[in-house]
């Protein structure tokens, strides 16, 4: 199976968000809300950092 970096990042972010939501919040509704916010934050911040790094030359 082949995965792109972005696909693996989504899988990783989904898993991490689920556990962090369970640990930090109480109640299903609050946990689900926090899961969505945490997941969106992880993906959003990664995209912003990638976009900021775009002008820098790569070593390849």
């Amino acid at each position, binding site marked *: *199976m082949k*995965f792109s970096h972005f696909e*693996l990042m989504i*899988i*990783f972010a989904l*898993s*991490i968000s*689920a*556990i962090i939501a*369970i*640990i930090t919040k*109480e109640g*299903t509704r609050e946990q689900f809300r926090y899961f969505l916010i945490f997941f969106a934050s992880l993906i959003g911040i990664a995209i912003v950092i990638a976009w900021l790094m775009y002008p820098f030359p790569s070593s390849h």
Partner: protein
Amino acid sequence: MASKNTAASEKTKPLTFTHYASIVGGWLVPGLGHLFLKKHGRAGIIFVVINFLFFFGIFGLDGRLYSTEPGNPISAFAALGQKGVGSPYFIIKIISMMKNDTNNSPQSYYEIESQQAFAAGDPASPYYEYGITFTVSAGLLNLLLLFDIYDIAKGKKK
């Protein structure tokens, strides 16, 4: 001050044998600790997510199992992180040791490759580092969940 201490001690419960068993069980099998504390939904999600992260990292992404290597002190932290996942780590370790039995020495390159691919990972794979990240994260998340079990057992969290 005294009334505050009294109020705090009323909120927290003393730990019983079941609570200690929950903490140990939660380490050995992800989700078992929450199951002991009757948090069935959380237990199910934890079992699926932690095991998925670990086994996907090993089999899907060709990650490796760490053990403390002489001359590489950082490997101790990675090994500790992976051991946090509990029994899945030791199951893979034991199976890989059985496969690498010296009495059953490999006869060809393909046999060496099939033996190493199990727990030593495939460093040539483009997903090798991702695999390590997934497995170490699974272990560290499981260790973090032990604090959640402790809080539930003490009555600090529902």
